[in-house]
């Protein structure tokens, strides 16, 4: 066993400390880093999605390019064909996200001047969270027909894990919930 012959007593660590650069390791590691760096770079190039607002999407030249957008769902526009699993709805531009997401979404969905975008999704079961004033984060492409064809949907409801402000209804027995 070469191992036994090679081992040094614990009391002689100085020798090790003085050792120079171990070239074969260095070359191996550099090769490894370069390889993995290349992998990450390639992945970044092919996987990158611009996360833009509806205003930016409509103003820029994004037709046919995969992007991510975010908007407030307008509840009345949701149409679902469960036979063919087709979902259509419209989202409104969210101007500036404030700390109170519920309020931001409410205002966006009710702003008659907000930019709107029609969304079309195929082969997906209607998510439970797809409802009025939810925030929809969609990945997909804008078609030449002005409709956004989404392939990935992420929905957030402001009351998801936390509700927003203390409810005035607590104080007022006549107010609705």
């Amino acid at each position, binding site marked *: 066993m070469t191992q036994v012959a090679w081992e040094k007593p614990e009391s002689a660590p100085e020798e090790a400390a003085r050792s120079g650069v171990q070239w074969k390791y260095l070359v191996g590691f550099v090769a490894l880093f370069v390889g993995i760096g290349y992998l990450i770079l390639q992945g970044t190039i092919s996987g990158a999605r611009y996360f833009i607002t509806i205003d930016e999407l409509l103003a820029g030249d994004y037709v046919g390019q995969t992007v991510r957008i975010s908007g407030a769902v307008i509840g009345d526009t949701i149409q679902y064909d469960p036979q063919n699993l087709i979902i259509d709805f419209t989202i409104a531009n969210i101007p500036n996200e404030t700390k109170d997401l519920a309020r931001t979404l409410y205002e966006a969905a009710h702003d008659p001047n907000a930019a709107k975008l029609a969304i079309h999704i195929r082969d997906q079961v209607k998510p439970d969270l797809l409802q009025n004033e939810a925030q929809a984060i969609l990945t997909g492409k804008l078609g030449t027909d002005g409709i956004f064809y989404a392939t990935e949907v992420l929905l957030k*409801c402001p009351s998801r894990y936390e509700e927003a402000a203390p409810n005035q209804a607590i104080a007022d027995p006549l107010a609705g*919930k």
Partner: protein
Amino acid sequence: MLAELGFIATFLAFLAALYAAGMAFYGVRRRDDRLLLSARNAALATFPLMSVSLGALLIALVTQQYQIAYVWNVTDPNTPTFFRITALWGAQAGSLLFWSGIMSAFAFGTIALNWHGQRRLMPYVITYIMLTLAFFLGLSLFLENPFERYWIMPDNSVVKSVFALSGAVPPAAARLAETSHGLNPLLRHFGMIVHPPLLYMGFVGFIIPFAFAMAALASGDLSTGWIKATRRWTLLAWVSLSLGLVLGGRWAYDVLGWGGWWGWDPVENAAFLPWLLGTAFLHSVMIQEKRGMLKVWNMFLMLGTFSAVIFGTFATRSGLVDSVHSFARSGIGFPLFFFWFSVTAVSVGMLLWRWRRGELRDDRRFNGLLSRESLFVLNNIVFVMLFIAIFWGSFGAPIVSELFLGTNITLGKDYFLQVTPPLFLALFILMGVAPLSAWGVTSLLRLGKALIVPALLAAAMVALLALMQPAEPLVLLIYGVIALSGTVALWETYRGAAARHKTLGENWATAVTALVARNRRRYGGYLIHLSIAIVGIGALGSELYQQETQRTLAVGQSLALGGYTMRYDGFLGGQIADDGRVMDIAQVTVIRDGREIAHLRPRRDFYPNAEGMNTMTIPAAHSTAENDFYVLLVDWEAISASSATFKVFINPLINLIWWGSLLLVFGTLVGMYPDEKHALATAVAAQPSRLAGVKA
């Protein structure tokens, strides 16, 4: 009463933590035993105080004290008692307090077990843990207070305050109960009951090895003492985090209804990142223990793991990322970021300081590319690369693009599916080879010989998998590599037991038990390797060969998918459960080879009282070793329900993920089980350094 009690207990715990941190540090500088004992006692006191605090909140939840805003937010009169208890961690404020409670429990445990064995490190350990605890308790006291109550002011406005305000009256109890929110429907699931506590235990548990590492740097006791003292704590944190991750996946699979269990979502990734560094650490410390090498690297990994824990907490709780799992946007983002930055900067600074003083030099140098230490280093590099790749994809790219490019670029699932598989594969290869190589030097020939039998076993497993699920040659090869990492573990255990059986004449059962008992760490580790191989095969199979279809069926009609037939038998509409939810249930029968093998009830639940999201689609599944037949009720014809639409998935091998993770727990328990000679702490140093000799 409960609110005041809880708040005061939390506040006292906060003061005790600050006192303990300050006094431990001052005491060790002054070398004053009495001060150190006082610091220790204050640190121990945080645990009972936090028990009172959490107990008060729990009682408030169970006894429906809706005046407390937290209780009002997460429960309503229809909530079953069970979910009242789990509501303790159902939202930000409660879960933060719960987090601090777990941290105080860990602190209590480590002080009780390690105080005598690690006298030199303990004062610093107490300082670091207590500062962290004080920070989190500060968040609970000043920003996310779960004990605030609603009050109606004389001008009829509603305000929140723990203590009664002058002129204010509590709202009417009936009105509070009527308007209360109820727990988010998504959180009413078994996975959500155990997933958060386990994840928190995993996250919080890493504070112990981290504090010991920092204590080693601060005290100058840079021997392997800190590693030996914390090995079991690290394993406890690691296994909790592992299980937490798997159960999170199980929850997503059962509740989110998209047929998958891991979505490369930033928040999932945030919990996975510390796991990667923690796992690398568990491997590389062995090299320091056995060979006296990689001292700086091990420190770096532990500091990195805890930094990743705090970063993950920040990412999840600040609303930084958009994710299905995240908490609502909240005011604790900045303090958490600041805390993360300070922890990271201080620890890196301390490490560099000791390093530059030359106190972390390795005892040996590397010799031979195939030696076990070299392979372990390679394993570490791959883990760190995975960390970098996943961090970059989840947080790096969005942050860098926002800061420097003026745009917001996110990387989708494609990125992770492209970048991570080669790295995972490299890990499995190393898992197969490294246990067979020797410390010091190993020849290629020796390694090749040792691999023959495990490779044959792996080939047999691949053949079995190919029979169950035809697959491309490349996939079979990958299955083989993963299987090899498991068969090596099995074969090594068999060889050890066979040697005992032959030489000592023990029967097989005795031989295996005695073998494992003699080296629990090694064989516990092998069991973990085997379990990871099983999970890996399950993950690959379910990812690559998932089949899906959707159809609308009239009652009596069937659909076919992957050898199964599913018949729609009927519909049970408007079933009311105990907790007030309304269930619409489809009844289907799963048939295979002409035999009815299961009756499933996919359903949709409607929660009349829930705010925001109020429906949940609950899948039903028939599970076998081969696959899951997984059914979602998509829609049904109103009133008559004479037809209903289903989405059906077949998820091959997915159950291997859940079963493999059970084995992982078992393996970790074997590895953690104390040797008879030692107490749980094991860390009783050969010569406990006397306090008087403490070097600052």
